[in-house]
């Protein structure tokens, strides 16, 4: 029970860190101003009214909205901290992938449900983006599992005792972090929620619905940064400090780098991104997997 609360708290804190870092550039008063802004907008959204639309599919809409944060927390369940994860199965990496795929469906539902043109367009932009990054993401996850010889997240961290995986599979690391931004439709991949379609999937959301989707989005971004740190940057391994501290430091470092880079890149058009993802990233990740497979056969791990 305490483990569940700890994971929940950790995931939400990472999400809050992501939201604060995202706001830190535009907020008045720098990072402290960003913290108050994030907390204030959260509380304000709690007391605002919910929006209903004409002839919307309310069941599907509210299901999608509720699913977004739940899936982010479920993805946090397999992040390894100090040699354990809340959910430790022999297919952790596939669980993470499955939660991200369900997020795909959930954001589409958020776009479809309100029977409104802008969320619908945003939902379909998200589907197109998802089709683009899904294969490279799967290949990069499998490459980490391949090097560790196991799909269990704690085994992947343990296999990085000597050398971090990012050294032998940098392409997989970059693709994973970019996919993290893509499935949270944030930064350069914010086309599903961009202002040229009036906010996209977020357009008809108000009050607690909006809060749930925003919390889910930022939490997934933070949790994916933690997963990237665990899968590619050695998790809790490091001198002097305990495991938990190193995990937090590395996750925050990845999150900081992600936010720093994400705010400097323009929003990518989904159809252009599909082209680049299928013609460049899929072969690159496949070659990366081949290189890692050869290294595994040569006994480098």
């Amino acid at each position: 029970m305490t483990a569940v609360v700890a994971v929940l708290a950790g995931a939400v804190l990472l999400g809050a860190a992501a939201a604060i870092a995202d706001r830190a550039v535009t907020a008045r008063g720098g990072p402290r101003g960003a913290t108050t802004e994030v907390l204030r907008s959260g509380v304000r959204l709690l007391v605002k009214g919910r929006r209903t639309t004409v002839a919307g599919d309310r069941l599907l809409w509210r299901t999608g909205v509720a699913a977004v944060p739940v899936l982010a927390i479920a993805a946090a369940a397999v992040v390894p901290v100090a040699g354990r994860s809340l959910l430790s199965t022999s297919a952790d990496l596939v669980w993470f992938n499955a939660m991200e795929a369900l997020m795909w469906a959930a954001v589409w539902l958020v776009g479809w449900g309100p029977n409104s043109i802008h969320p619908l367009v945003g939902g379909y932009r998200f589907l197109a983006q998802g089709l683009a990054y899904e294969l490279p993401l799967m290949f990069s996850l499998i490459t980490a599992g391949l090097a560790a010889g196991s799909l269990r997240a704690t085994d992947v961290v343990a296999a990085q005792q000597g050398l971090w995986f990012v050294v032998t599979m940098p392409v997989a690391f970059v693709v994973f972090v970019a996919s993290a931004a893509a499935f949270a439709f944030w930064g350069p991949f914010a086309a599903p929620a961009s202002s040229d379609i009036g906010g996209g999937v977020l357009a008809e959301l108000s009050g607690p619905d909006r809060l749930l989707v925003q919390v889910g989005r930022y939490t997934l971004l933070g949790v994916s940064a933690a997963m990237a740190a665990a899968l590619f940057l050695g998790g809790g391994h490091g001198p002097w400090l305990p495991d938990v501290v190193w995990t937090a430091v590395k996750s925050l470092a990845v999150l900081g780098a992600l936010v720093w880079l994400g705010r400097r890149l323009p929003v990518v058009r989904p159809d252009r991104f599909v082209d680049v993802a299928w013609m460049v990233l899929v072969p690159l990740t496949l070659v990366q997997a081949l290189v890692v497979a050869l290294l595994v056969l040569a006994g480098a791990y």
Partner: protein
Amino acid sequence: MPDTGLAAHLLAAVLGIVAVGTGIAVFRVDSMARATFSLLASFLAVAAMLGLLGLTYLAVVTALMMTIEMAIMAVFMIMFMMNPAGLMPMTMTHNQRGSFVAGTTTFVVLTAGVWLVDWPARGGSLPADATRQLGEAIMGSHMLVMLVIGIGLFATILAGTVLATARGRYDRFGAELDRREPSDPLPGGLPR
């Protein structure tokens, strides 16, 4: 390890009812989106049952693949259907009597088989790592066949897509294939 206690049996029964119920709902709702997600709910219930049986990898991979399938179905929905939203009620069933008979017959035969067949006793014990054992059982002695078939399937999908498109490279690059930028309805992307 699968749990064989009463709670697990009850949960499996509930998941079974959910799977069958949402499966029936696929044909009762009059919105394509609801039909798609009822089907997804049915598959997720089956995946949860696989998880209860201790087959974690199969459970998670079923959930993953079925979700992606439903998402792609949503793309095709809007491409080909006149009224996917179900704002005007529409019947999406055809050959109702034939499929009802076939469906109930299959269900009755399978259920009778499950309960009446004399299943053999288990020989051996639970493996330490079910995922590894599954991988070795599927691919241990048939790796070459799997690889060749996989590439064959991929080539078939690509060939089918290429045959289905109306525009070819001569439409995009001109009769002599000498245009520098391809002329597409939607510009952009890599200059190939």
